[in-house]
């Protein structure tokens, strides 16, 4: 049975498709956390992006516009989160949580009023590469918005590790007082990281609507944002580890449909809860071994000293 599952290309295809949302959202979250924000509103950003994509693609009959709307919707939510937690210095968890509730209510309300009809993205097979046996279609035979990850992840790596801006960003997450003394505007960097996180998570939500599900349901995101946050913890706040975590959780989520497609019966509740349980279990195993950014979730307020 295990061999059957592992040797079926459906598993890899489905796992990659489900991991795309995690990868985009978790990469965004990773940047925000490296700057020192534990951004709980990630879930809300994904929902906003998913809804934005539905509205955009429905009004303009274009997947491109849908993705644009998704990014903007995520960014709008990020702007509220960033300015309330890193300008007004309200508690970031309180803001994030309220935003999640707000977005669920708001998108459910607007969805019932606007009833968007989603334009689905087509599959684009990359020649040659998609012919690789077993994993070819998984990595290179998806609907085209999935290929965003090949741009988004290296971009995030470049921004954080190869630019001055990224160095300052990491300094804000490790030692905001020192960063402040060296002339870095700590809260501004943190806000910028959240903006980027919003764009990434919004695009992830857009992918969910446009390429994965094909409709928008307010409850459709169902805590995937929190799994993405768990992926960052799983990865020990490294980009490589985060991406690995995303694929682990994506595979766990794919397992249900794959088992069904191959004719196996398994407990549906167990399969649905598998990614969440796995996220909890991996945090239990790895969370104490890794070192979070030293100033994670600590607000920066410039004192008198």
């Amino acid at each position, binding site marked *: 049975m295990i061999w059957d599952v592992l040797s079926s290309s459906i598993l890899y295809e489905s796992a990659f498709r489900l991991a795309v949302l995690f990868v985009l959202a978790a990469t965004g979250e990773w940047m925000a956390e490296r700057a020192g924000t534990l951004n709980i509103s990630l879930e809300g950003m994904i929902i906003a992006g998913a809804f934005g994509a539905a509205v955009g693609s429905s009004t303009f009959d274009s997947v491109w516009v849908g993705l644009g709307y998704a990014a903007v919707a995520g960014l709008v939510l990020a702007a509220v989160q960033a300015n309330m937690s890193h300008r007004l210095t309200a508690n970031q968890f309180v803001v994030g949580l309220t935003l999640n509730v707000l977005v669920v209510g708001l998108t*459910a309300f607007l969805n019932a009023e606007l009833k968007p009809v989603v334009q689905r993205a087509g599959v684009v097979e990359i020649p040659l590469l998609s012919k690789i046996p077993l994993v070819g279609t998984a990595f290179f035979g998806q609907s085209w918005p999935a290929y965003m990850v090949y741009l988004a992840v290296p971009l995030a790596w470049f921004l954080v590790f190869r630019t001055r801006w990224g160095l300052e960003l990491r300094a804000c997450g490790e030692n905001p007082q020192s960063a402040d003394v060296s002339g870095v505007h700590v809260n501004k960097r943190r806000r910028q990281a959240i903006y980027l996180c919003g764009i990434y998570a919004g695009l992830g939500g857009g992918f969910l609507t446009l390429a994965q599900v094909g409709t928008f349901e307010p409850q459709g995101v169902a805590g995937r944002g929190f799994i993405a946050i768990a992926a960052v913890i799983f990865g020990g706040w490294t980009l490589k580890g985060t991406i690995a975590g995303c694929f682990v959780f994506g595979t766990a989520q794919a397992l249900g449909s794959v088992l069904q497609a191959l004719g196996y019966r398994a407990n549906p509740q167990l399969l649905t809860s598998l990614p969440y349980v796995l996220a909890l279990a991996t945090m239990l195993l790895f969370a104490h071994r890794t070192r979070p950014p030293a100033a994670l979730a600590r607000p920066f307020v410039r004192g008198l000293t």
Partner: protein
Amino acid sequence: MREIEELPLAVVDAAPVIPGGPPRRPVRDAVVTVATYVVSIAVALALCALLVAATGGSWEKVFSALIDGSLRSPGAWGLTLTTAAPLLIVAVGTIVATKAGLVNIGQEGQLLIGASCCAYVAVRIPGPGWFALLAALTAGLAGGALWAGLAAGMRFWRQVPEVISTLLLVFVAFQLVAYGLTKTWLLLDRTPRINKNNTGEPLPTDRTFGHLHLFGNDVSLSVVLALVLAVLIALWLSRSVGGFRLRMLGLNPRAAQRSGVSAVKVGGTALVASGAFAGLAGGVLLTSESAGDRVTTAFSGNYGWQGLLVALLARDRPLVAIPMALVFAALRTGSGFLAATGVERRIADVVQAMLVLALLIPPAIAAIRDRRRAVAAARAGAMATAPATAGAAA
């Protein structure tokens, strides 16, 4: 000494208290504070009205329907009060955890688990009604405590942030209860019927809260329980040694550790207690029958999330949570009347969240104002002393 100094700094939410303090202007500050509250609430409500108007609804009708559903129609305010009870209990529990510096945001799951444990015991235990009710509520309490206890264990044994673990456990709780609802030996209705998909067993009527009949309204006695709990916790937090230790841990973990407050014991207890309250709220929700007399997969119906918002709105003061729970309960019962206006009932959720966001702003503005004043005062002080020290050095 060494390891204590290496501990991380406390998580500071507001501006740090600056020695000397900013110059006080009490009357003007009070006026400004009230004004910022009024303006931000007005803006939040105006945005909601705008949203209704923009989607072709009439906000006057929405407002009137909300009032009808929550207060004016026959029996409405009794239902609102009964609805407020579980919200208040969840909120009080949340406040306990928040005061200890822990962020429990998994009340929805803790509540559902609590309600399920309560249902399991309530339909099985023999004995007189009052005894069965007490046992069932205790089971609910224990269920919620256990669910939060998982997060507490992960937090203090393996440093898993409770923010994430409590949240992820919500989704596990949903699946667990869904599983329980497929098995008769767990939660599924045991009476043989044709269509019994995924519903729990109805509660025997003697295992529910009694009602007070007041002016044509049925008010569940669970309201009394919720009020008593809120007052007791308010007193305990402000007047007892245990409450003091808990608040100390929340305000400054480093100082708390130096004076012998164990983060594991006090913090763990606070997190478990907040889960216990959420579980109890689930039991109360079930036995006061305001959300039906049996457990379903959607039984928790956002009571957990909304109770959490009540706590945030009350800014961690249990007594303030009482009116806030009433406001949220009114929006909940009122939203049942929205169907007649043709406006989607989820607008009530939007109003709730907008209110919370609006009430976050004034204290933040006040904190910034105080900080600016303190900086200005300190600069003025430095200017005054600088020539003197310069003279002394010369």
